[in-house]
């Protein structure tokens, strides 16, 4: 049953980046027969409520109306929780995935990002804040295209 619930959750897309699921992003922290524990990515992420509603709707549609959804803040979400499959989906979607194990230490010396379009490492940060809380604006100096980068967090 837990396996079945997890499979359903894997089909629930993130509302801001529909290419990845809530499981890929590491938002789902715990799955048991009677509850699903989720955690917000950013405290102010406007998608938090939508995510909970989407998960509720998916569970209800598959006959798991009795499974509760709980939110936990601790331990705080980290981009290290994004799965390898999730990272590949982000790249394919045009968003440079965050390097693993970067955490907060990457703040001051942002490591070079690989351009998700042409693969060049010849890139630069334009703005540390982007179109959603989880992304920064970057630009590729090789192919001249701008791109989003998932912020290390």
């Amino acid at each position, binding site marked *: 049953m837990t396996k079945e619930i997890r499979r359903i959750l894997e089909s629930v897309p993130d509302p801001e980046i529909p290419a990845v699921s809530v499981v890929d992003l590491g938002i789902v922290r715990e799955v048991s027969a009677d509850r699903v524990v989720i955690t*917000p990515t*950013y*405290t*102010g*992420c*406007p998608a938090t409520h939508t995510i909970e509603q989407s998960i509720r709707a998916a569970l209800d549609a598959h006959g798991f109306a009795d499974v509760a959804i709980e939110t*936990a*803040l*601790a*331990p*705080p*979400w980290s981009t290290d929780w994004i799965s390898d499959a999730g990272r590949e989906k982000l790249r394919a979607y045009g968003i440079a995935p965050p390097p693993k194990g970067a955490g*907060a230490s990457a*703040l*001051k010396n942002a490591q070079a990002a690989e351009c998700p379009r042409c693969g060049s490492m010849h890139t630069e940060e*334009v*703005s*540390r*804040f*982007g*179109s959603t*809380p989880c992304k920064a*604006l970057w630009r590729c100096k090789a192919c001249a295209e701008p791109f989003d980068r998932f*912020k290390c*967090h």
Partner: protein
Amino acid sequence: MVSALPPLADYAARLGDDSLVLGQRLGEWCGHAPAIEVDLSLSNVALDLIGQATHFLGLAGAIEGAGRDADKLAFHRDVMDFSNCLLVEQPNGDFAQTIARQFLFSHYQALLFEQMAQVKDERFAAIAAKALKEVNYHATLASDWVVRLGDGTDESKARMIAGLDWMWRFTDELFAMDDVDAAAIAAGAGVDKAALRADWDARVDAVLAEATLARPAARRAIVGGRVGRHSEHLGHLLSEMQFLQRAYPGASW
């Protein structure tokens, strides 16, 4: 009137009010910032702060136990029941004044949350640990701009100096301690803010040095926000922020 919340709820409300009022202030920049990247940055910081406020005010309401949630506390209290520090309610002024306020506040908040993430009360510790990662971004953003404006043109430098000058009077209040702080510390939730001062001075001074700016001269501190004595600016901010819920109580999406 001073907030009638019990001490620990008051402590949570102070944290929430700081974030809420500053978040609302930054929201005023949306669509007006000097460049699109700056617009995005300030809006993102505002969102983070409003997220913090939702958690802290929700916690304040839960501790109070009278059925008030975060929205009720945000939209249905009057100006004298707000307990935010005076720094966060100061007007945006020009971009440099906004950056000065963010710079001084974010470094304080980062130090505060570093300590609060370690407190015994898991509710406070969890919010602080979560928010800390975001606040570090805010502090970095503001520091970068202080350096860029301070070590920029004559015009940008003059504006940065004027912005810091405006905000400096309200920094002592950040580290002031009273009975509510003592009660929160006794309950395993509070932080000794006075003890953060030396680290804050060091962080602020390091950035000011890089920005080729002198530290503003010490002057008489203006305090009172924690007990509901606010500047005239907060009432105007609340009248805009609270209008919809006051006119249509309980309205939702």
